[in-house]
């Protein structure tokens, strides 16, 4: 293209530095809006958590309820992420390397599912695993819906596409010849998978897994809709304390803990990914 030849700085000739400073004024309005709508409210939450000095903090952190919820949240997030990674990798490998007619439709479907609300999955579980549903009528009421496992299976269902999308992208870039050569040299499917495919898609796997871990830590819709009694997570506890019991200071303490947990993970993730390079797109 002719334009490519022009990409050397012709237009930059006219005093670039002063213009840059005046141009950054344009960044001010969106930054002010975000400061007012995101930062200011979060600072108030931190302030509110200290209304009774450290007393509220001591009380909340010391409570069994909080510790159980913290452990439960991490358990559910870790188990769901591992499940998503296993299922997502299997599905992506089949779509990419054992293709069948309609595989493209399936990967389109995966893209569409990213934008669906998570509570749909929880709602469907009432009909699939409930006392009178598909499984209930086959094996009787197993009480499965009341256990943390129901939340984990629901989260695996909902978040598997989040792992599959970066994986499918990375797998599409592996030259098919590489696999054929490996196989012709006598590598069995497992060996080719382990030694050729997995090393190539590791950054995508890390990006998808990291994002899933973050989102499952913060997941609320699924837990709310399943409403299982012994699966209180931190976001659920924020809701109960804040909306049902109107105990704002306690809710704010839990919110601060949750935000520190999530942002800590997010920062670590972005740092790790930018060192690996390339796979950051999955977080955007």
């Amino acid at each position: 293209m002719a334009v490519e030849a022009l990409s050397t700085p012709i237009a930059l000739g006219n005093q670039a530095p002063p213009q840059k400073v005046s141009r950054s004024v344009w960044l001010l309005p969106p930054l002010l809006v975000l400061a007012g709508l995101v930062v200011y409210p979060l600072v108030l939450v931190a302030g509110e958590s200290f209304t009774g000095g450290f007393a509220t903090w001591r009380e909340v952190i010391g409570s069994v309820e909080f510790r159980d919820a913290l452990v439960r949240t991490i358990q559910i997030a870790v188990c769901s992420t591992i499940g998503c990674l296993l299922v997502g990798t299997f599905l992506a490998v089949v779509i990419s390397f054992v293709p069948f007619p309609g595989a493209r439709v399936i990967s389109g479907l995966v893209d569409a599912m990213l934008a669906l609300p998570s509570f749909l999955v929880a709602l469907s579980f009432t009909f699939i695993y409930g006392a009178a549903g598909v499984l209930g009528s086959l094996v009787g009421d197993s009480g499965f819906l009341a256990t943390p496992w129901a939340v984990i299976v629901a989260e695996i269902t909902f978040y598997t596409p989040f792992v599959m999308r970066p994986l499918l992208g990375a797998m599409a870039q592996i030259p098919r010849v590489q696999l054929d050569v490996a196989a012709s040299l006598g590598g069995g499917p497992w060996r080719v998978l382990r030694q050729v495919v997995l090393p190539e898609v590791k950054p995508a796997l890390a990006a998808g897994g990291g994002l899933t871990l973050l989102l499952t830590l913060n997941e609320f819709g699924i837990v709310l809709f399943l409403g299982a009694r012994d699966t209180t997570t931190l976001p659920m506890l924020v809701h109960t304390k804040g909306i049902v019991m109107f105990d704002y200071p306690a809710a704010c303490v839990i919110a601060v803990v949750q935000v520190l947990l999530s942002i800590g993970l997010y920062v670590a993730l972005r740092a790790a990914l930018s060192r690996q390079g390339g796979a950051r797109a999955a977080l955007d």
Partner: protein
Amino acid sequence: MLLWTKPGKIVTWIAFALVFGVLVLAPFIVVAAAAFAGSWNGVFPSSPTTSHLAEALSGDELASLTVSLQTAFLGGLLAVVLGTWAALAARNAPKPLARFADALHHLPIAVPSVVVGLSLLVAFSRQPVLLNGTKWIVVIAHLVLMVAFSYGTVAAALQRTNDAYAEVAASLGASPARVLWQIRLPMLRPAIVSAASLSIALSMGEVGATIMVYPASWRTLPVSVFALTDRGQTFTAAAESLVLLAVTVVLVVTLDRLRGRSVER
């Protein structure tokens, strides 16, 4: 390719169909089936009916559909404008400032939606700005959550566009406003449209922040679905979720039509 034998392939495909069908696809099919079922006491739903769907499209439930649509359009539109503005401005800003803006715009992704809701509740239930109890607190919650995605989508597209077009136009004497309006924005149109459809789709299904802040007069569709499930009216809840899905798909497909051919590459 990975597998060379016919039986190997077939076994793998059967496993794929089972995992994908049961784990990923079944929940969505089940919700659709339940929406049309009079009862579900066996493996399959029975006594097909459209009465749940009719219920989901009348009275309070219909009202919450219009509430959701208004929230999604208002919140989504504001988020796209703000996100596009920020992405364009950050492109021209000095590096440290641009990185700060980048981090600030990604903050709402890392913060759980329930906490976003709580923070708005704490901030806008007091002076100087009282918004608690109005629809605006819901719209702001949606705006905050969607702005991160809009910013991300447009910023990623900006990285792939060629600055030369804008620079040539400027060197030929086009004013900055004209460069923005006739070069920058048209080149970003596909990204802006995908940002809009993603924002609207996510906003239509948002639960966490909405359930913290919604006033009784501004109940979005997902909140209604939750209220129905809570009361045990799961079939009507399924029908209403199906309405939610259908409306979202129609909106996204319509917006996709506006997207036109990509000019990025």
